[in-house]
């Protein structure tokens, strides 16, 4: 079987399986109550459910036998489906259950997720960027109050202020700690290049933080910081103490060092020796060589390092929640401790979105510098 057929088959199976047998969500009368599973038929109603299945079979047949025929139209239909089904799902009201409409909620279930995995598989032959449009579309609908009964939206409404505060905090922590690591990271990379004897020490130093589990580093950091704050109480007033912002910031800072240092070093090392020799031979002083030639040529590589540091930091910052440093981790760990999965999701989704956005932003910056310099960091220069 061709790979295309396998994905179509898997997609068909998943979508049909989800539509017929799996629960799409759970209705809970309050946050921690056991949920009542909602099958597709439950919230679609008989008529719509049957129509959906017939329509799906028809579409699968189209994809199977006429792969390119309706693809453009189809992808738009499928794009609107999730939003549509979310709205319907959030309007679901079970029979014979007493509940307070302000507290009751609907959490998303396995059927919903698998159905859209199946849809993505079915659409794998069409253009993909629609996923971003789909996500934005769902967000807009959610914010304009179209699916208030969803657990995710309800959790968000409950803690709107906290959520925004923690989100800001998360970004601040992740970005500023990585930014603080830029000057020392670059300096260390340069020193490693300049003094080969110091190289192993420098790389040993930055590797330790990368290899040691973040969590244990956080714990290690708490001891000296607590001692410090006890010895010099004014430091505690400045926020430097065993828990909170300071240890999280320091750990994230140390964590960011390796990618920046390693990329700076690699960039410096990769520079064409003929270019550097010429810079010297044309009469540049060592400082001029570094400022005018060597460092600019290393910039794309350094940017790649900063990009890695920033994106990995966005994920790692979750752990700051454990030491009172705040951020999305605070929501996630609270959700975990209360078995409130919607809250966990509410904390996780923004982290993923932030990492993706940051990565995209940095990709643009990196490409711009590469284009401006007319040189790439991993491609060798074309010097015949």
């Amino acid at each position: 079987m061709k790979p295309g057929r396998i994905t179509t088959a898997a997609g068909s199976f998943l979508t049909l399986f989800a539509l017929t047998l799996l629960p799409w969500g759970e209705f809970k009368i309050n946050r921690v109550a056991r949920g009542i599973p909602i099958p597709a038929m439950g919230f679609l109603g008989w008529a719509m459910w049957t129509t959906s299945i017939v329509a799906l079979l028809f579409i699968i047949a189209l994809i199977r036998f006429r792969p390119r025929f309706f693809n453009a139209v189809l992808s738009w239909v499928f794009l609107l489906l999730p939003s549509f089904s979310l709205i319907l799902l959030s309007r679901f009201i079970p029979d014979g259950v007493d509940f307070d409409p302000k507290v009751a909620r609907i959490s998303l279930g396995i059927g919903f997720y698998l159905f859209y995995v199946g849809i993505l598989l079915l659409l794998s032959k069409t253009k993909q960027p629609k996923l971003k449009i789909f996500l934005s579309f769902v967000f807009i609908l959610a914010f304009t109050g179209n699916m208030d009964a969803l657990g995710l939206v309800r959790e968000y409404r409950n803690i709107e202020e906290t959520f925004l505060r923690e989100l800001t905090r998360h970004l601040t922590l992740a970005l500023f700690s990585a930014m603080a690591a830029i000057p020392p990271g670059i300096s260390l990379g340069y020193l490693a290049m300049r003094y080969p004897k110091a190289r192993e020490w420098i790389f040993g130093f930055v590797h330790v933080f990368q290899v040691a589990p973040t969590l244990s580093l956080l714990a290690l950091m708490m001891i000296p910081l607590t001692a410090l704050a006890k010895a010099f109480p004014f430091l505690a007033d400045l926020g430097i103490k065993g828990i909170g912002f300071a240890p999280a910031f320091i750990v994230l800072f140390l964590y960011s060092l390796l990618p920046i240092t390693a990329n700076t070093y690699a960039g410096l090392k990769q520079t064409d020796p003929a270019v550097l020799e010429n810079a010297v031979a044309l009469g540049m002083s060592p400082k001029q060589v570094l400022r005018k030639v060597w460092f600019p040529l290393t910039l794309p590589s350094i940017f790649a390092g900063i990009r890695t540091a920033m994106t990995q930091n966005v994920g790692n910052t979750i752990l700051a929640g454990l030491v009172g440093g705040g951020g999305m981790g605070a929501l996630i760990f609270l959700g975990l401790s209360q078995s409130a999965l919607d809250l966990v999701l509410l904390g996780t989704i923004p982290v993923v979105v932030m990492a993706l956005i940051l990565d995209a932003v940095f990709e643009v910056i990196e490409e711009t510098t590469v284009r401006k310099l007319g040189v790439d960091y991993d491609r060798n220069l074309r010097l015949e």
Partner: protein
Amino acid sequence: MIEISGLSKHYGETLALDKVDLTINDGECVVLIGPSGCGKSSLLRSINRMIDIDEGKIIVAGKEIASYPPQELRRKIGYCIQNVGLFPHYTVYENIAVVPRLEKWDETRIKERVEFLMNLTGLPLSYLTKKPHELSGGEAQRVGVCRALAADPDILLMDEPFGAVDPMTRIKIQLAFKNIQKELKKTVVFVTHDVEEAILLADKLVVMQEGKILGYDVPEAFAKHMEEDFVRLFLGEDYPVKLLKRHGVDDYLKQDGDSATTLHEILGRLLKSETGVVEVTDTQNKIHEIRFEDLTRYLREGERR
């Protein structure tokens, strides 16, 4: 004038240069030739202090090079090497302008100079805004030559500058460089291991082996050095034949013409002709006969010159 005396250089145990003496006159193109590891590059690179010498003296423009600050010395001396080493983040213009900018020329003067050099090396002015990666190998070499000449240095050091381009482009660049040199009359020290390139460009030839100079003379006079085994081996038994490429029919007829025919081509025609005679016309439309003996005689005369 570059005066080198008693120059020695060690790399650990190996002796790269062994008490070398060499005087290079102003306006001459001196080609250092020899197998790899013979010390020719070390000799070249010691002139602008890219390597430090162990013993001996180098005098450039009447002053010992150790008395110049190294950056100042290097800016006075143009430098051009095999891999060009153009700055990939600079445009062609910025690449050529490097030394004038270091010397703090004003920008209008730099612009004039850059455009002059582009014309000189036969590069279109539209290339000024290009980046090095957009250039072909030959074009990059030309830009390299422009950059070396940018601040109008009296001395030019070239280390196999045309070594990395394809043969066709190479001949074009060599001829272009020969013309440039005719016009600018720089003092050039040129390193190569290609005998034909050396014969084409050299005013004087230096053959080196194991850190020593085996011969220093005009190319025509090298036949008398051929008794030495190494020189004969390195330059090749066909050296006199290659030498004929240096001389045009105009040189032979002692006239100021514009014929592109070389004596090398005349030799080719002689080898093909059944009579052993090739006829050429001079600028006065007089017909001259050239025989094998004439070529032999011409080379002998060159030796004495």
